[in-house]
């Protein structure tokens, strides 16, 4: 289990002012769950992800993974970035196997594992292609395969589909659910799309800016329903989907005055 307890982050802005980027955020990410952080820009969702990944230390609070405090970045937390960060000089297979290379896995084994993971994301025939030959969606799939290669305990995804067109985005969401259903990885996912949050999250936390904090939490089952029935339309047209959509929408757009944390559990 990944536990975030009262995590606060203060930045120093360029003009010397102090920015309160994250305010006492607490969060649990259990096995086999997808926790989605949703909010407008500046709500601290990327700050939270960077802290979990180890790119950023906390000002206050703690983050533990299976009881161990999280420190510097490591292969136990796989990260998928919004901007693709594939190495342009390496083939797709070598990119996927990069973490295995760092871990000293022999070349043949790396190749086998890379091909296996490329199969998982539907790119088995592109092992020897180079990143610049792939479309944006395909590159993000390589990014997901690369993050899974080291068998991390958690997958951190920072608006991974934010730069994709909406059609590709839908395909990628379904692909991610397949990957999740097959690997059982816990996932922490960041987005500013309410629909994406509702569709993907077993838990959605809504965040609001200035200071960045978690203002609401919803436990959902749409993603499990999709994994079982694979019927997108039934989910998107379900009345409770529309209801939640409206509720979250008003939360996201509301002026941020309240301090208590509303909590709602849907079953």
């Amino acid at each position: 289990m990944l536990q975030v307890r009262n995590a606060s982050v203060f930045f120093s802005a360029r003009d010397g002012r102090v920015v309160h980027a994250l305010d006492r955020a607490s969060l649990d990410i259990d096995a086999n769950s997808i926790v989605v952080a949703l909010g407008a820009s500046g709500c601290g969702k990327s700050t939270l992800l960077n802290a979990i990944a180890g790119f950023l230390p906390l000002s206050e609070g703690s983050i533990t993974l299976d009881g161990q405090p999280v420190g510097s970045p490591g292969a136990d937390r796989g990260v998928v970035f919004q901007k693709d960060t594939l190495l342009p000089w390496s083939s797709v297979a070598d990119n996927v196997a990069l973490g295995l290379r760092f871990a000293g896995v022999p070349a043949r084994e790396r190749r086998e594992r890379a091909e296996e993971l490329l199969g998982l994301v539907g790119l088995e025939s592109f092992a020897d292609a180079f990143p610049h030959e792939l479309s944006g969606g395909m590159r993000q799939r390589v990014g997901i395969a690369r993050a899974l290669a080291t068998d991390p305990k958690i997958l951190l995804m920072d608006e991974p589909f934010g730069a994709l067109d909406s059609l590709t985005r839908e395909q990628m969401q379904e692909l991610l659910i397949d990957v999740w259903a097959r690997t059982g990885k816990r996932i922490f996912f960041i987005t500013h799309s309410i629909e994406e949050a509702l569709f993907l999250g077993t838990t959605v936390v809504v965040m609001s800016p200035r200071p960045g904090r978690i203002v609401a939490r919803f436990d959902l089952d749409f993603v499990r329903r999709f994994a079982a029935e694979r019927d997108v339309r039934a989910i998107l047209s379900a009345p409770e989907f529309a209801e939640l959509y409206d509720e979250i929408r008003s939360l996201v757009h509301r002026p941020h005055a309240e301090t208590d944390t509303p909590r709602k559990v849907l079953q």
Partner: protein
Amino acid sequence: MTDFARPGDSVVEPLNRPKIVRLHPFGLDGARTGPISLATAVLLLAAWFLVTHYRLVPPLFLPTPQEVATQFLAIVEDGYAGATLWEHVSASLFRIFSAAVIAASLGIPLGLAMGLNRWAKGVFDTPIEFYWPLPPLAYLPLMIIWLGIGEVSKIVLLTLAMFAPVCLSAQAGVRALPIERVNAALSLGAGRWQLFRAIVLPSALPEILTGLRIGIGVGWSTLVAAELIAATRGIGFMIMSASHFLATDVVFVGIGIIAAFAFAFSYGMRLLEAWLVPWKGKS
């Protein structure tokens, strides 16, 4: 009455190739310039030929192309100033190559270190920024006083001229490294050395190669200055020595040889870039 053609009329000649259009380009947009450059070269040669043929300029200032060609063949056959043409060329090539190897093996690691480390940057920034805009001719006398008139002072002069562009470009290569790429590698479990070897070095490689190309170009342009120092061999020496005797045709031969080698080096570096960093500009 209408002018509209009926559907069947539009296909008068099905074999006709349609008019191919494309978006209006701006700037060069990859247009071919080779033939234009070739025509320019031919025109310049023709102008040279005509100007000298009709004696518009005294031959002492501008020899005819035939004279330069004859002189070239004579130098190939008999050498110049007691050394064969190959001895002159190899003396110059040896100096340039040694200087390039020294400048690269010092400049690349130091540039990378300056891009990564506060202390390296702080210590070496001032001396490099101070010396590199200086023209090599300005510190040439110091080289002679400190290091004598042998090969050492010539190679050091060339090394100093080549070092700065190589070192500065290696620094720029590190600076151009996106932080996301570093973070991605760290979250894949890269250690410090792995991060450097697998991420920093290849990311900086395109800039480093550009720096080497510029450095070698600077080297050729400094060569004549380096060979001012009591040389008895070298293309630069050949040019300087010929100018003392107003042998303009030999000067032209020397300039032509330097130009040919500099062009070949530059082209070779381009090939090396295409081979080592085929991803350049594609990511």
